[in-house]
């Protein structure tokens, strides 16, 4: 196994992790500020991807498709927050799980109703397609590299938003004491709608970006959603920094495990059994990582509260 292959796989893991971060950041923000567990976050990812695929199909422009994905997910997010989610902030977690599970059913089947069961395709734009040469003679997909850059920029933007702006101060204050900032004259329900729409937009963006390398289909959101849960359990609920580090850990573990575990077992077993055992173990690697972190730190790496 050559060094080039290893570096390629590390880059793939980074790219996957950073897309997970876009999902996990929204989830962790929504939980941190509103105390809400949102299973329907995967549906917003799917809505972003479908909006992008439909727009790209109609206009042929990838940039417009991304704008459409952001807008569609944010608008649907805001509507859902105002109509349903708002009533759940004081409810038990069980009610939140159930109501957002109901939303998944409605969104998934609704999308199937509108777009049919066949997957849609979103093409990588010509200016981002093809390989690019990295130092050391490594050929890597330009689009995947662009995803890494976009994700890092979004992470930087989120950090700036929460640490350096007035809105960020309100968000952080809302995490600590919602009555107090309401008493100080901040319109808390508007703030909640805004945070939810922001999380939704991030999920929609992730859906659209990943939609160009995978197929756009109903049910694409939930596997990513569950991995994003693993990420925030590892990173600590409510912590954006935790979400970032957790995403990279999960992305790298999942990608590298899938490639290297079967190879590792081939050193000790005959090839057929090795790839079988290796791939079965690789599919569990992320969850084993999560268990280890939990045994070590029950509230996650950067979690302050349970």
């Amino acid at each position, binding site marked *: 196994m050559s060094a080039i292959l290893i570096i390629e796989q590390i880059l793939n893991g980074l790219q996957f992790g950073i897309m997970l971060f876009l999902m996990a950041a929204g989830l962790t923000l929504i939980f941190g500020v509103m105390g809400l*567990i949102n299973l329907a976050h995967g549906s917003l990812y799917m809505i972003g991807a479908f909006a992008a695929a439909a727009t790209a199909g109609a206009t042929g422009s990838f940039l417009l498709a991304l704008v459409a994905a952001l807008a569609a997910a944010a608008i649907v997010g805001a509507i859902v927050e105002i109509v349903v989610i708002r009533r759940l902030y004081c409810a*038990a977690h069980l009610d939140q799980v*159930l*109501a957002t599970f*109901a939303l998944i059913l409605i969104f998934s089947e609704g999308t199937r109703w509108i777009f049919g069961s066949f997957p849609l395709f979103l093409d990588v734009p010509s200016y981002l397609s093809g390989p690019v040469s990295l130092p050391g003679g490594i050929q890597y997909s330009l689009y995947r590299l662009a995803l890494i850059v976009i994700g890092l920029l979004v992470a930087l933007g989120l950090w700036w938003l929460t640490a350096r702006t007035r809105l960020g101060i309100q968000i952080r204050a809302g995490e600590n004491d919602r009555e107090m900032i309401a008493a100080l004259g901040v319109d808390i329900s508007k703030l909640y709608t805004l945070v939810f729409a922001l999380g939704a937009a991030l999920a929609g963006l992730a859906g659209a970006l990943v939609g160009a390398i995978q197929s756009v289909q109903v049910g694409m959101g939930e596997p990513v959603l569950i991995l994003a849960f693993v990420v925030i*359990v590892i990173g600590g609920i409510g912590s954006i920094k935790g979400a970032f580090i957790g995403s990279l850990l999960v992305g790298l573990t999942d990608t590298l495990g899938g490639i290297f575990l079967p190879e590792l077992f081939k050193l000790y077993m005959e090839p057929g059994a090795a790839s079988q055992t290796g*791939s079965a173990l690789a599919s569990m690697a992320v969850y084993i990582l999560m268990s280890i972190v939990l045994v070590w730190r029950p509230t996650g790496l950067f979690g302050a509260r349970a």
Partner: protein
Amino acid sequence: MIQERYINAPVIAGFLLLAIWAHLADEPFTITLATRAVLLALAAVGLNIALGIGGLVSLGHAVFFGLGGYAMGILAYHAQSFSPLELGSLTIVGTKSMPIIWLTAILVSALTALLIGLISLRTTGVYFIMITLAFGQMFFFFSISWSTYGGEDGLSIWVRNDFPGLNTLVPIQFFGICFLSLCLALILHSRLRASPFGLALNAARQVPQRVETVGLNPMRLKLLAFVISGAVTGLAGALFADLNRFVSPTMFSWQLSGELIVLIIIGGVGRLMGPVIGAALFVTLEHVLGDMTDFWHVWLGVILLLIVLFARGGVIGLLTGKAGPHV
């Protein structure tokens, strides 16, 4: 308003009468539907022990359902193909005998519940929900990538397994087995709830600190509840796989975990008959709405939202006029 105990008996009797009527009217499909409802109810009764009494919102109970299913599938597969499973010095020849399969399903599920519980009960609240969901997904992906037992395609068995003295391929006889299991599980639930263990568990759900001050260990109570709960759901899985004569990774899917919670909520959380009423309504809805439109899940979603937002006690809550215990 009707008292809860006047609802329970008619529900159970209704199931039995429906099956007997269907048998006399020669409607085997109705019996199969009723058996399906009974088994979903059994799985949810299992979950209700953890969720209703212990307040453990497990979004990964499909793990136990699937383990039960695969316990059946694997044992029957080795028996029907006459290829014993070699595990080092241990040789498992497989079996078509239901009691042995059930025992295996119960033991495997209970043991897995113990392991998952030991890790996930270190946390509470949202963490617990997410972790159980994640473990469910772990088993799902494992079953897909383990190709010896069919991988993604699942595993079929040719004929239903045997129970001494019965012909399990006759729908009404198999229904009888499932129905009796459900009755036993309901008795277990009501006995547990009234036992010192159940009362302590109930208290641990409401105020864990107080339970701790009187010298009980809330974690141990919850762990035991989780194990019993997993074992019952595992039994349901073994029977469910036998009903379909097929087991596949979908029995591990997170949708199934969600649906089990849905069954409980439709009927009423923490109610003895909640899961039974929920399963009956769910299978009826699935059948009736499914005939009208391919997209019946949209309407199920709308009904669920309405229940969560406006009728928190579920059907039993509506009938009795009291919301159930707060979970």
